[in-house]
């Protein structure tokens, strides 16, 4: 038998194996792996004195039936579901619906009726968006990373300079870090960090939004941007100089925040009120004082959904946690904190277990964003974070919830493809 014929027999075997594996992307790697095995076996048979003609037939017989091998490999490369993350997200969304129902039923909002209906509509839209991102191949991010970064940067600049200001804050500015995150993941995962000029790109990407974030009296946006950037950066292992650069940026933003605190009287006042809300019970301290009153009334098992709350501003959005505690009680409040932690923990799992730098970077950035936002929201009411109006993902009211659901879908999509991605490292 000639080498040529050998080859076509091996190919036929590999075709039969791959015919059973739906994920085409892993075919080339599986073919190479099995082929080298078969050829090794042929060599061994020949070395043991088997005539070359029979060696291949014996090698293929040793491999086992192609269809069976293919079926089992198919099972190894199927889409995966991160059930924990999915369940946690679903529970948080349900809690959000409950919260809207309770806020409406207790008559403690100035938002009028229809909160629950609107929340249902936003949830439906968010789920469709998240579903699309879940099914789509997240690796398109590499292609759209620069445009996405540019657009988000333009939005950040525009909102800061010309945006609609509500309560001294440009609207939607707090959403920009979450939009930067996938862009940063796409960029950082594609860059060659050994290249001489990468640090220039890095400094531009890191530094460009910071002046705008420092202009708004809202430390959360800068904190979230830097947290997400750092999380993404750590997963792509760029070397310590870059990590040092990120640390330096964090310190200088911290320094700038403190300097502004000392220079701008209104910021200093807010800072003092954070330390002691009772200083300004009718002004900046009002939200926290009222929210704490509502929570302390709740008792272990809550007042029920229809019990009226003390007047708490933004009870449907940036004060939604106290309103949930009021209706469901302290035990449920603790359980909700645990649920949030569980959700974050599953996101970290996605980051650790997905294959490839992009998936890991993306999941890590998303985890950082949700972590900062959720913990900040809850922290506002226990004195651990300044009350600057941060909503609770999946639970609060508002159109921005669609974005959170979309991003959760993106993370689930990363995990879905974890065994469908080619690209084993070359040593």
């Amino acid at each position, binding site marked *: 038998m000639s080498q040529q014929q050998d080859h076509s027999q091996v190919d036929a075997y590999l075709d039969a194996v791959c015919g059973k594996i739906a994920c085409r992307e892993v075919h080339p790697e599986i073919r190479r792996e099995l082929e080298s095995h078969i050829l*090794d076996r042929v060599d061994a048979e020949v070395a043991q004195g088997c005539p070359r003609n029979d060696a291949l037939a014996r090698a293929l017989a040793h491999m086992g039936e192609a269809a*069976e*091998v293919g079926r089992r490999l198919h099972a190894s490369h199927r889409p995966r579901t991160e059930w924990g993350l999915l369940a946690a997200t679903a529970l948080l969304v349900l809690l959000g619906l409950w919260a809207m129902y309770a806020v409406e039923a207790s008559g403690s909002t100035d938002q009028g009726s229809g909160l629950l209906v609107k929340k249902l509509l936003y949830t439906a839209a968010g789920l469709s968006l998240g579903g699309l991102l879940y099914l789509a191949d997240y690796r398109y991010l590499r292609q759209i990373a620069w445009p996405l970064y540019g657009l988000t940067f333009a939005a950040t600049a525009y909102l800061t300079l010309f945006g609609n200001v509500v309560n001294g804050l440009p609207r939607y500015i707090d959403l920009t870090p979450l939009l930067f995150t996938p862009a940063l993941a796409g960029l950082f995962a594609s860059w060659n960090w050994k290249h001489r000029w990468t640090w220039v790109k890095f400094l531009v990407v890191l530094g460009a939004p910071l002046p705008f974030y420092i202009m708004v009296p809202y430390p959360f946006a800068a904190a979230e941007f830097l947290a997400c950037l750092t999380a993404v950066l750590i997963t792509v292992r760029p070397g310590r100089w870059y990590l040092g650069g990120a640390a330096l940026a964090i310190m200088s933003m911290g320094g700038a925040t403190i300097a502004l605190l000392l220079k701008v009287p209104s910021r200093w006042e807010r800072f003092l009120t954070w330390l002691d809300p009772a200083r300004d019970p009718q002004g900046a301290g009002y939200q926290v004082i009222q929210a704490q009153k509502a929570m302390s009334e709740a008792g272990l098992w809550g007042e029920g959904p229809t019990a009226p709350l003390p007047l708490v501003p933004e009870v449907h959005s940036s004060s939604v946690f106290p309103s949930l505690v009021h209706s469901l009680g302290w035990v449920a409040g603790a359980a909700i904190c645990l649920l949030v932690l569980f959700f974050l923990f599953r996101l970290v799992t996605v980051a650790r277990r997905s294959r490839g730098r992009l998936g890991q970077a993306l999941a890590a950035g998303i985890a950082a964003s949700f972590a900062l936002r959720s913990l900040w929201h809850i922290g506002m009411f226990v004195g651990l974070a300044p009350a600057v109006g941060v909503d609770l993902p999946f639970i609060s009211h508002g159109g921005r919830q669609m974005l959170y659901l979309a991003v959760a879908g993106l993370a689930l999509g990363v995990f879905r493809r974890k065994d469908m991605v080619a690209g084993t490292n070359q040593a």
Partner: protein
Amino acid sequence: MSVNKELLKGSTVILILTLLDRRPMYGYEMIAAIEQESGGVFSFKEGTLYPILHDLESDGHVEAYWSEGEGSRKRKYYRLTEIGRKYTQARRSEWDLFRTAVDRVIGGSQA
């Protein structure tokens, strides 16, 4: 002499993990080592090794990398991760427990 397929099925993973605990190996190398060290008792359909390896990789117990072998033949090597090392220890003590229990039952009269 060879052993019952079902008997072998339950122990394939522990055999593979134990081999990889010594050093990184590629698929054919593992098959050859198992065959040789078991004196030819353990021989199974070689293609079914790869789904097991890919599952171990998916669970984070092993990681894979391509490397040049002799000539131009490329090989996909597997090595244990830190999680995999702990997992191997757990599976080994499980196996020891199982083996002792089986020995105690079937060898009970002689013991």
